[in-house]
């Protein structure tokens, strides 16, 4: 071993695995563990950001955000091949200990104030999602911390034609992220979006076409109004439902309509005029925002942006400018908060090829859409990968002591020490098989009819068998995007994570939105340009269908 024992005892590494680079990540884990280092769960607790493989472009912003979230002292380590892992980690550990340099770097930056967690999974406010939108400028918005949020938005304004589109596409997920930033500026940038005055109308209209319709059932129709003229008027008509006032194209009225909308979400958005804007925004749910685009954005400033975020549910900005969760009826008929999040790609024990956009009610996955990112092929049937699956399941099941033994087996297998690996795998399997508590904790959980406990035992068993030169009895479970959705829907977060960890995403299925009505995910693709057609906008798909609330906006929001 190139490293003396204890060489990394002061290293806490946040391992980011590029899609398809599982083997590299395993090698990094082994090198760190051998030197006494630990694997961090969050950027807050890490001092080394270890990139295992080359990240796809769409993850770049996310990686940057995670880096920003890490407190000093910190270093970044980029790994490209198993053979050079030791040297790279070694160099990183030395940089962490170079305190004068660390102090100087820290002084150049303000004390980090970051959005909690989000970055970690794309979810956050932080704009990660934005990246998906790329192609549009949104991505830049993510900019992370509070300060910029808004700025980038301006970029969007760019082409007039899109205006409408982008907004729309963003609506779903990203809006939220924009908000992310601190409340302060947010607003400013927005204005940029408005882009050329002429379009304003257009966008509206364009959106209207799509989104509105989606919203249909509600009054959206009026919004389309495009030109400034109507703005105010429609509001009233919409009243029954939300959107009404949004149209707001003209600056003058803006405010008025709002009222009518009330009861529902959008109410104030219309706000076309800069003056009011602010207020209402908050109430508007995601969609509307889009429509507002032209004029109002500017006015919406600060407050609302965030609110727009989620689709509907999220309302006004909460602490730090995040969207607050909106209430919705839970299965038991009691009101429950609803949050939109994206799980992945960099959660601990998560396959980075997988992006799971979820609607959470409390900690229950209300609904989900899945994207599977294209990546170099990894053979999930290899003993090392079977053992890695067991390690991840055991860690998620909250049994680190046995997970460590399985990890030892995995690392030995990766190093070619089959006999030792087999011995450790058998030992880990024995613990799993014996545990009554684990049996009870996993009771009733199954993938494809196979109890989760058997998936775990099978992975350990088969790995041991293959290491001993025998043939495996089971095959790793591969699941398509739609099947993964089915797996997690209605589960609590912990259970959903365990179930997802038990399967491998099907590389042949990207979770493309076409067949499904809720293309939430459209945005994620980064080529969301034709957003209008995509359900992204589609109210029906996202809000209602997706969130299950048929009518929840109304109902839910009315309470307020």
């Amino acid at each position, binding site marked *: 071993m190139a490293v003396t024992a204890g060489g990394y005892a002061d290293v806490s590494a946040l391992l980011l695995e590029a899609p398809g680079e599982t083997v590299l990540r395993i090698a990094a884990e082994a090198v760190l563990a051998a030197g006494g280092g630990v694997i961090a*769960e969050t950027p807050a607790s890490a001092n080394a950001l270890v990139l295992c493989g080359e990240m796809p472009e769409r993850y770049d912003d996310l990686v940057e955000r995670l880096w920003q979230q890490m407190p000093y002292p910190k270093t970044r380590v980029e790994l490209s091949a198993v053979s050079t892992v030791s040297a790279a980690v070694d160099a990183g550990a030395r940089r962490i200990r170079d305190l004068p340099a660390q102090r100087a770097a820290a002084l150049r930056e303000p004390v980090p104030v970051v959005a909690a967690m989000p970055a970690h999974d794309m979810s956050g406010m932080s704009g990660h999602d934005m990246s998906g939108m790329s192609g549009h400028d949104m991505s830049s918005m993510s900019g992370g911390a509070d300060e910029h949020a808004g700025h980038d938005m301006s970029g969007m304004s760019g082409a007039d034609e899109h205006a409408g589109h982008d907004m729309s596409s963003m609506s779903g997920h990203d809006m939220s992220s924009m908000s992310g930033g601190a409340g302060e500026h947010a607003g400013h940038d927005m204005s940029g979006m408005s882009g050329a005055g002429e379009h304003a109308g257009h966008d509206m209209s364009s959106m209207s076409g799509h989104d509105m319709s989606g919203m249909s059932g509600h009054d959206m129709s009026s919004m389309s109004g495009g030109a400034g003229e109507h703005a105010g008027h429609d509001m009233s008509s919409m009243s029954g439902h939300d959107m009404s006032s949004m149209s707001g194209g003209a600056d003058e009225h803006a405010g008025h309509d709002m009222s009518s909308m009330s009861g529902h979400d959008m109410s104030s958005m219309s706000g076309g005029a800069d003056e009011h804007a602010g207020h209402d925004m908050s109430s508007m749910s995601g969609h509307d925002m889009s429509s507002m685009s032209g004029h109002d954005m500017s006015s919406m400033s600060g407050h609302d942006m965030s609110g727009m975020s989620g689709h509907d549910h999220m309302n006004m900005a909460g602490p730090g400018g995040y969207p607050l969760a909106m209430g919705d009826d839970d299965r038991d008929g009691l009101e429950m908060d609803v949050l939109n999040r994206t799980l992945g790609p960099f959660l601990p024990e998560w396959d980075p090829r997988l992006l799971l956009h979820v609607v959470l009610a409390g900690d229950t996955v209300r609904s989900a859409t899945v994207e599977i990112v294209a990546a170099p092929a990894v053979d999930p049937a290899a003993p090392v990968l079977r053992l890695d699956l067991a390690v991840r399941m055991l860690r998620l099941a909250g049994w680190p002591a046995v997970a460590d033994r399985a990890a030892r087996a995995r690392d030995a297998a990766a190093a070619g020490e089959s006999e030792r690996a087999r011995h450790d795998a058998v030992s880990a399997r024995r613990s799993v098989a014996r545990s009554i508590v684990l049996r009870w904790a996993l009771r009733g959980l199954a993938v494809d009819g196979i109890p989760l406990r058997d998936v775990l035992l099978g992975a350990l068993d088969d790995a041991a068998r293959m290491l001993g030169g025998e043939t495996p009895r089971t095959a790793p479970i591969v699941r398509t995007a739609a099947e993964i959705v089915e797996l997690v829907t209605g589960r609590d977060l912990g259970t959903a994570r365990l179930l997802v960890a038990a399967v491998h995403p099907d590389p042949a299925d990207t979770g493309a939105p076409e067949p499904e009505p809720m293309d939430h995910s459209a945005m994620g693709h980064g080529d969301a340009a034709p957003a209008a057609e995509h359900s992204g906008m589609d109210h029906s798909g996202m809000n209602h269908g997706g969130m299950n609330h048929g009518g929840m906006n109304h109902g839910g929001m009315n309470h307020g």
Partner: protein
Amino acid sequence: MAEYLPLIVAALIPLAVPVLALAAAGLDAALTARARGTSVAVGAARPLREITRLLRQQRRTVLGADRLLWRIGGVGLIVASFLAVIVVPFGDTVAADLPIGVVWFNTIDVALWALWWMLGWGANGAYALIGGYRFLAQALAYELPLMFALTAPAVAAGSLNVGEVADAQSGLWFVVSMPIAALVYLVSVAAFSAWGPFSPAAGRDLAGGVLGELSGIDRLLVKAGRWCLLVAGSAFAVPMFFGGGAGPLLPEPVWVVIKTVLVLLVLVFAGRAIPAVPPQRLAEIGWVVLVPLTLLQLLITSIVSATGTGGM
């Protein structure tokens, strides 16, 4: 001199509890290194390295954090552990000889609900918040059994004073005469420390949950606080179930410390041997199994002590 002893004990508590906590963390880290197949010596020293690392780490904050509640939760755990130990008698000396010491301990334990939850809430992040709620779900399951488990020794001793509870075991330790209460108590200590099978509030599936957003000194205080709670729970078990300072040869305070260490060892090893219990399933056990069992224990204890007293 004698009148200063309680003060001396009180002053030693904030030193001794963290030392034992560090030892327990070192043991756990050494066992982790052994399971992982890496250097056990390096593993054992890991908590010390972690302390120096976190002391040097920048103190990060989170957008929109509820800083006041977050910090209270962060400092609170370790403070609560000290407060719990002040009613533990070391021989004849107690830092705070409260007539209602048992209730005092129970009060601290209830305060932990708020402290853990504030940690989750303060971070203004979804995972941390879910972690906070996981703790509450867990607390809902263990709290009633714990209260009944604490009641049993008090009923048997006819006192809520911890010293008198310890003295009442001169014949038979309560761990023998009321094993269910003792077991439920130990399980609850692991639970309120979010240790071992009761750690889903800080679960890896939540990317660290309530711990996830903590860095620097804040993280250090919370991680240390967890271990200190485990130590405090072990120390309080000694007068409640393990005969207090009773033991041959050695002076009573030494026996209290030895027994505390032994209970702590049991908690560390047992915590590692058992996988996480999903909080939502814990209520089932807590209310359907443990509450009736502890009530039964209490009934037996009450009958025995009532007839025992009547007989005299």
